[in-house]
């Protein structure tokens, strides 16, 4: 489990962090500023993928409904912004709380099931949210909600792309650190243990359901924050954020980077988004290439990229 505490893992993560830190000036030098917003998207999706990794990689809960949390966060920001750009100190915590609340309600039902049932139930709940927002005119229906500007934060001008990038990077780093601590604490041990053998932990007198539900809520909350950031990045809330293929893409990021590794999902987000962007430059039919690539990754590169790059075995 302690992949990140090994030397090569630390070196790799540190190197990536430094690279991300100097990325904006580097892009300026290379005259590729447009890539900054793509990198920012990747940071935010990295956050969403990391939250999915908490329940999927460590808790063994294969949720195919993560887009719902992202969407709830984004729509919270969008609806609040109808009366002009509001304070991020109000909108963002509210986005997190609402996403957690939804996770609590749906998790209480869906965590009673396992395996295929769990996959399909989380998917169904996410569809429910999708149809809820797309059929309500107040939420912009199928058109989504354009924002008049980014949220306001004291002392930070979020409309400056660079400031926004560093804010995303800071939040991601902070949350990854907290997740790292959480997973190595007693809570994480119980979570991983309930993935491996829930009955054994229950015999030991541990409330595994409570632990799993709490992890599910935390993951929902973090994904809600990612949604709020995403709405701010594009200054637009789109129903496509809620589409079930988005849940699939977030899951792809986790697997591509490496399930059950701390930095893997972020790596996966960067690789997937930049690969999409790169392929789209050559052909409009890039999905016909990406699809088979995904299948090959699943079939042959088991364990994801992170263990490959940071020199670890499979962490599952």
């Amino acid at each position, binding site marked *: 489990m302690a992949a990140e505490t090994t030397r090569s893992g630390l070196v790799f993560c540190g190197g990536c962090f430094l690279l991300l830190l100097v990325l904006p000036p580097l892009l300026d030098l290379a005259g590729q500023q447009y890539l900054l917003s793509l990198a920012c998207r990747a940071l935010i999706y990295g956050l969403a993928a990391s939250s999915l990794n908490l329940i999927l990689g460590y808790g063994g809960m294969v949720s195919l409904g993560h887009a719902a949390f992202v969407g709830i966060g984004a729509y919270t920001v969008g609806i609040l912004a109808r009366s002009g750009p509001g304070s991020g100190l109000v909108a963002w915590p509210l986005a997190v709380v609402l996403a957690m609340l939804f996770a609590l309600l749906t998790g209480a039902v869906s965590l009673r099931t396992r395996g295929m049932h769990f996959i399909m139930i989380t998917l169904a709940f996410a569809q429910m949210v999708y149809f809820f927002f797309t059929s309500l005119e107040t939420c912009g229906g199928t058109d989504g909600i354009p924002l008049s500007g980014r949220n306001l934060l004291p002392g930070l001008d979020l409309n400056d792309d660079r400031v926004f990038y560093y804010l995303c990077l800071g939040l991601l780093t902070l949350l990854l650190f907290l997740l790292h601590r959480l997973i190595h604490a007693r809570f994480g041990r119980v979570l991983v243990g309930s993935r491996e053998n829930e009955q054994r932990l229950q015999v030991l007198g541990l409330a595994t359901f409570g632990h799993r539900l709490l992890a599910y809520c935390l993951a929902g909350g973090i994904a809600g924050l990612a949604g709020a950031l995403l709405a701010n990045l594009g200054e637009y809330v789109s129903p496509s954020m809620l589409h079930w293929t988005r849940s699939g893409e977030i899951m792809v990021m986790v697997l591509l980077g490496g399930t059950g590794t701390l930095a893997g999902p972020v790596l996966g987000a960067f690789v997937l988004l930049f690969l999409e962007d790169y392929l789209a430059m050559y052909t409009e039919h890039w999905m016909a290439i990406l699809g088979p690539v995904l299948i090959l990754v*699943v079939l042959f590169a088991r364990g994801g990229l992170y263990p490959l790059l940071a020199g670890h075995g499979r962490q599952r």
Partner: protein
Amino acid sequence: MLVLEQALNGLQLGVMLFLMSAGLTLVFGIMRVINLAHGSFYMIGAYVAATVAMRSGSFLLGLLAALPAAGIAGMVVELLVLRRLYRRDHLDQVLATFGLIFFFNELTRMIWGRQPLFMDVPSWLAGSVELLPGIHYPLYRLAILLAGMVVALFLYLLFSRTRLGMQIRAGATSREIVGALGVNIRLLYTLVFGLGTMLAGLAGVMAGPILAVEPGMGESILILTFVVIVIGGIGSVRGALVGAILVGLVDTLARAFLPGLLRLALDTAAADRAGAAIASMSVYIFMALFLAFRPAGLFPVSES
């Protein structure tokens, strides 16, 4: 009287869902593999039928071309990809079949373009029948109902009366023992998968004249299919039949009557808005309520 018409519409949606879910629930139940790409075979069926019907002018030829096309496409996918995933965890299966969806959707875009195709109702099924005095119902939709019943009967006979059906049922219970008894289990799995995708293709052909034939058309019905399977109990064809009809009825009736019912309590505009929102979620709410009481579905098949 409107109720009867809407109930028939609901049954007809139920039949299409049954055709989709029968194959998928078999694949779930027997191979224990989750296949998100099942909707792609529905799409392949619809596209092949629409193209052949347009070129030849015959709906029947389209149907006859679409069924083997969907079946063969399914068997090829089973041989190339799915076969390698049977012993993997569900996560790997979800991702690989997700990749298949990307591939098939883009492939149809490359071959047929982004514009939806439209398929005509065959002339011998056009028109409507007078069911009761004053109630006309389209003949084509009645034909779908009939076809669904025939398929259900066929599957029942296949599973309960034939050697192949017995082997499939036995394979679902214990793969190793059936294999040890000399049944070629790999071939059996490929056949079951092909049968499932052929049924999905049939659903696609039937949907062709009612809905637009377009890339990604498989996904909207796929998720309803999942709801059906969860309600019916994973692996149970009987459960798929009951679940499909329940889901078809709930969805259609909620869309038809919920705004009207809400109008009794709210003003018209608010009732229409809330009604539309709740109606589109109704199936999922139904599923959540259902699972709160029966987490394993209607006809649970033991899962090892």
